[in-house]
């Protein structure tokens, strides 16, 4: 039997991107929510709730980007020029340290943290939208226009992703904080849960019309089965979030919000497969030669479980509620 290396790698990269979206999603969401929590003490706690783990979360983005270069170099070379990544991540990244180093400029770095998170999340949503629309490739190179990524659809996906990230952020705060801060986060999470599901609905109704391929996937047999099951599961997650928020099971809303993201992600995956740059390149078109794929695969199969283990350990070390005055600053 021939092992389909390209398929295995597509799965690994897809996993890395999903890990990134859900993990950095909640800490970007916390950043965006800074705008709604003006009190300094609340902000201290909010930032400290993600400070020990944010760097690891963003490493999954580097793995997604670096992995693309390694195993799907052609996709990397064509997706990225079309999606010129702006600078939000820089501002929010440095704000984690800078904010504690100054009194006079604390507000400046608060704005940098919230604004950077907002810009980064919005851009990722736009990038997703641009990818779903499809990217033209001619002669192994990007063949689209300068402003192709900017359409009503991509802006809508940007907004939808922001709503989703703030849901992750607010449920994270419900889980990690207490008192008045947690109570506010709980109220926000309730509203954002419905907003997120509504945004997913709009996205799902809009996407099939972007490409004939998607229409076929969504309404053709057998993939149409998913078109029935996924919405039901989404409603199930919504129910779990609402119940968790009402009954005070503080971890449940966060976990159910992760479930929403995984479902949405699976839906996109089903629409795409086997394209990596819809509808120009399949995973086999873009794959690196087998020597490259297998060399890195050996390492990934050993290292990714180890990484997951010590990442889980780091989360375990910082488990429980964060109180004001914790952190090393």
């Amino acid at each position, binding site marked *: 039997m021939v092992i389909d290396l390209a398929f295995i790698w597509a799965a690994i990269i897809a996993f890395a991107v999903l890990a990134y979206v859900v993990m950095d999603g909640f800490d970007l969401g916390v950043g965006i929510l800074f705008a709604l929590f003006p009190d300094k003490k609340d902000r201290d706690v909010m930032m400290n709730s993600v400070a020990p783990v944010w760097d690891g979360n963003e490493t999954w983005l580097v793995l997604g980007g670096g992995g693309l*270069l390694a195993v799907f170099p052609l996709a990397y070379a064509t997706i990225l020029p079309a999606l010129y990544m702006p600078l939000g991540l820089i501002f929010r990244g440095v704000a984690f340290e800078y904010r504690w180093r100054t009194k006079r400029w604390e507000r400046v770095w608060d704005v940098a943290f919230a604004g950077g998170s907002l810009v980064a999340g919005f851009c990722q949503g736009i990038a997703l939208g641009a990818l779903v629309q499809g990217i033209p490739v001619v002669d192994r190179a990007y063949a689209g226009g300068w402003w192709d990524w900017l359409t009503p659809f991509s802006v809508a996906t940007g907004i939808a992703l922001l709503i989703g990230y703030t849901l992750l952020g607010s449920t994270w705060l419900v889980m990690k904080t207490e008192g008045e801060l947690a109570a506010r986060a709980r109220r926000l999470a309730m509203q954002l849960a419905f907003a997120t599901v509504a945004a997913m609905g709009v996205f799902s109704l809009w996407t099939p019309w972007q490409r004939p391929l998607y229409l076929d996937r969504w309404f053709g047999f057998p993939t149409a089965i998913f078109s029935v099951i996924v919405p039901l599961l989404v409603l199930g997650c919504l129910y779990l979030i609402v119940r968790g928020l009402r009954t005070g099971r503080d971890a449940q809303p966060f976990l159910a919000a992760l479930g929403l993201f995984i479902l949405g992600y699976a839906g996109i995956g089903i629409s795409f497969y086997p394209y990596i740059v819809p509808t120009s390149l399949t995973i086999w078109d873009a794959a690196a030669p087998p020597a*490259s794929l297998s060399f890195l695969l050996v390492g990934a199969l050993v290292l990714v479980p180890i990484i997951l283990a*010590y990442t889980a350990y*780091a989360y375990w070390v910082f488990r429980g509620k964060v109180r004001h005055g914790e952190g090393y600053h």
Partner: protein
Amino acid sequence: MFEHFDALVLARFQFAFTVSAHIIFPAFSIGTASYLFVLEALWLKTKDKTYLELFDFWKTIFAVAFGMGVVSGIVMSYQFGTNWAVFSDKAGPVIGPLMGYEVLTAFFLEAGFLGVMLFGLKRVGPGLHFLATGMVALGTLISATWILAVNSWMQTPTGFAINENGQFIPVDWWAVIFNPSFPYRLVHMVLAAYLTTAFVVGAVGAWHLLKRTAPLRAYTMFSMAMWMAAIVAPLQILAGDAHGLNTLEHQPAKVMAMEGHFDSHPNGAPLILFGIPNQAEKRVDYAVEIPKLSSLILKHGLDEPLAGLDTIPEDKQPPVAIVFWSFRLMVGIGFAMLGIGMWSLLCRYRGTLDSNVWLHRVAVAMGPAGFAAVLAGWVTTEVGRQPFTIYGHVLTAESHSPIAAPAVATSLIAFIVVYFFVFGAGTFYLLRLMARLPRDPSPELMEGPIRARGITPGPAHGGTHGH
């Protein structure tokens, strides 16, 4: 303002700018991570609180510098795709897996244990915390290893074939990673990182010795830094010499540019100390030279022949003046570091290491020297391998993305503005942190069994809570 430049020039300038801004932080954090590891080890071994205080002091500085390194590094990894898509497509099958391994073995290790190192001492206890510090330090070194394998492969590519799409295909991974210049470059860079940190630590120690606020801690770090200078600076000069001989073998045009040798010298080449390279006229104006010395250094014989740039086609020559000057700057700083190291040994022998004001002043002035040397060294090696991105195979002019000049210009301006703002502020905070070494405890408190941490004046903001 940018209408006179094409996309290639702008993309090259953008890469040079962002990579220069980036290399400063890893160069410092590689050394600082190892330094933190040593400090914590000494604290655990001797139970001397001074080491723990120094650990906390440098830990905060490390965290700020590391954060700047991470965000400037994200820009680098994406820039390959945005500006250098052709290069990424061609070289991806070879360098991509190496960078993938860097992420898997180094970045996750650093990021996973950084949180524990910064925030977790009370939660996990000293043993596991020490392990976390060790993992962060190990991560920085592993990261350096992979990225230097990538860079070295681009300088001296081996172990590959080229397929019908013009892509580089790995044939022998061992040869790809252990390409001819890799061991030399790796040693040279890691030593450079250690020296850079040593001179920063030395400058901070010397500054506080001059200010006399915390003589005990200031002397401890100054003394450690001067040991590093005395031991590592000579090693670095030897490593640099070996690296130079390796370059002569594999990239002779680079050495010709470093030496300013436009002409071949069949009977022993002179060492040009100074001069103004004139590439148009193919000569070095106002040259001050020592006859035959270059042949002695590079070929270990006074009359050994040494080829010049006249043996290299003009369109394959690097820009001489930049390489010539950056090389001299790097070597000059290296010997100045050696001088300080030797001077410190003399002072140590005489027992004046803590009191020689002039040594302290010079050490403060030399604080940024490591960064200048690292940048000068990278300029030498990167400009020296032009006009190629993959030496001998892919021209820089054939590597960039099909994007228009205005697109590159816009992002370039954005990067310049953002970097000056963000990294300017960061450098300011770093300097301020370095200037705020908590006072040594007064003697009666030191004799007590427990020293309350609360009495040390903390940083102005963030309070003294924590730990």
